[in-house]
């Protein structure tokens, strides 16, 4: 992780970030396509290829290209870490004012990039691609994706048609202030738009896979749901985690009181307490207290950690 802040780089207007994993056939055509799409625009740009621990010749081919094109930088991971870390690395190392992320499998079309730049220049903070004519398998790819996007839209209240599309454009200062880990790249639009940034969508071309194999599986749904729950919680209560847990605590306190009341009510009529019901009520009360304590603990973590990313984000946008 050697940075060269001292070197007199002209900070480019645009950085294109492409995570690559076992894409030896795609590297060359991809580089050509990006250069072909960006050269006519006449702007300063850089390309970042992030080799996510490929086992094939991806890195060798990419570095050969980099030797000839000094606008191309190649970051090689020590092993395979996944798409989000690869994008995070690209974003961390990017120097541009606008960042574009895209897939390395040639399914995204670099010719769409100028449209994205226009949208950003219109004043949007984030522009998401929407693969409206998606060229993938129906059962294993498209249907899970539609379900996931529907769930994400319902829960976050941000109707992004296609969260999974990698082709996106960001204002660099926005994306650099967002914690990006695990599989969070899928939720960037949802996260940021809830934080008050403006998100636009653009229909993009999508071509079928030419080389290699898809690196996704259907098991994503569980992960998506859990991640979503996390984001929803984090966002809704980022500044006041106590509220979430206190609400839960009150709920169970009510439930416990109600159960206890049932037990005692019977006892007045029959003269004996329903022990099962009474114990159940007490258990609910214990849970209520536990939740309140957890809430306090979260407040403590909140105070000591840097949890204010989203608040800062709002400030920069306004």
């Amino acid at each position: 992780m050697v940075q060269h802040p001292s070197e007199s780089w002209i900070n480019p207007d645009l950085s294109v970030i492409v995570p690559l994993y076992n894409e030896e056939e795609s590297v060359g055509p991809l580089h050509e396509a990006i250069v072909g799409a960006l050269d006519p625009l006449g702007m300063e740009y850089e390309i970042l290829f992030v080799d996510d621990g490929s086992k094939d010749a991806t890195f060798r081919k990419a570095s050969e290209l980099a030797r000839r094109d000094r606008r191309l930088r190649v970051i090689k991971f020590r092993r395979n870490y996944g798409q989000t870390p690869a994008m995070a690395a690209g974003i961390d190392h990017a120097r541009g004012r606008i960042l574009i992320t895209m897939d390395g499998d040639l399914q995204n079309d670099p010719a769409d990039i100028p449209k994205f730049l226009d949208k950003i220049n219109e004043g949007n903070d984030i522009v998401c691609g929407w693969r409206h004519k998606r060229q993938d398998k129906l059962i294993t790819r498209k249907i899970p994706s539609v379900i996931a996007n529907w769930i994400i839209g319902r829960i976050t209240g941000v109707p992004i048609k296609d969260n999974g599309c990698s082709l996106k454009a960001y204002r660099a200062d926005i994306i650099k202030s967002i914690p990006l880990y695990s599989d969070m790249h899928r939720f960037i639009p949802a996260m940021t738009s809830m934080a008050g940034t403006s998100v636009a969508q653009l229909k993009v071309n999508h071509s079928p896979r030419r080389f290699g194999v898809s690196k996704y599986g259907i098991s994503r749904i569980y992960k998506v749901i859990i991640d979503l729950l996390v984001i929803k919680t984090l966002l809704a209560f980022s500044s006041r985690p106590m509220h979430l847990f206190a609400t839960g605590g009150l709920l169970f306190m009510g439930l416990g009181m109600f159960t206890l009341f049932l037990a005692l009510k019977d006892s007045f009529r029959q003269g004996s307490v329903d022990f099962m019901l009474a114990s159940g009520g007490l258990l609910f009360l214990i849970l209520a207290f536990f939740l309140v304590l957890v809430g306090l603990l979260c407040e403590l973590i909140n105070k000591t950690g840097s949890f204010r990313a989203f608040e800062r984000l709002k400030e920069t946008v306004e």
Partner: protein
Amino acid sequence: MNVSVIPQEVSEKETPLETISVIVPVTERYDDVGEMYREYKEALSQTGRPFEMIYVVEGHFEKASLELKALKETGEKLTLIKHSRTFGEATAIHSGFLHASGEIIMTLPAFHQVDAAELPKLVHSLGDNDMVIARRWPREDSGWNRLQTRVFHSIVRRMAGNICNDLGCSVRIFRRKVLEEINLYGDLHRFLPILSHKQGFRIKEIDLRQSPKENRVRTYEFGTYLRRMIDLLTVFFLIKFTKKPLRFFGLTGSVVLAAGAGITLYLVVSRLAFGVALSDRPLFLVGILFVVLGLQIFAIGLIGEIIIFTHAKDIKEYTVAQIIN
């Protein structure tokens, strides 16, 4: 990224040999210190590489540190670090590392494990790898111990992949950057190969002859293995779920919660519809307990997520091997 200042004019393209820093933690178990020192020193001299010996003596082992001091007085070059009390082997290795000047680090036990004559083999096989670990093979051990070892390592394989077959052997050689990136504490030194693998380092395991002097009748208490299993669980959790605690807690929590909710619902329905009194059904308590437990697990997972989120900017999830341009 070593920049050699002296231009090499000799046509021999041999790179200058890197110094090996040998760290020997001396804790509860150690054999004759002087004898071990001489054996190690002789074996390492055969590699023809410069090396230094660092002994880290833990707390209450005065005898060992006195012997080492005596060795030092006879003119032997060794670094002696004394801890004020016993912190554990991982800490000992760490403080030895802080005093190590070599590019290559080697850890050796203070007792007989591997035949010292085999050490040059270990040094030579480092090559391009970041770490080379030894497996004592052929192995002589009591049947009971062998069974335990086999069960333990099959669990390790299941969890972390097939990278090591003898975690108990602390004869290891690795590059400096390994310990620069990995924070060792407690008993985690045992799992260094697994943690390094997770960091993306290249690891190789080689077979070395077991020392004929290793005390073979030694049997471990049940408690030893229990502690190791707990450590293994910690490592497993750290590797798989550091960044996504709720995926672990969420799954466990929702299974327990669903079971509890199912039981409770069934009993409440049978109470309302068929009039089966709840006081006759102790299962009701189990159901509610499960609901409570499930939600508690979930809440703990959420705490984990909040901790990760608040520190996410500080923890890099990836390690960069190289940047071109």
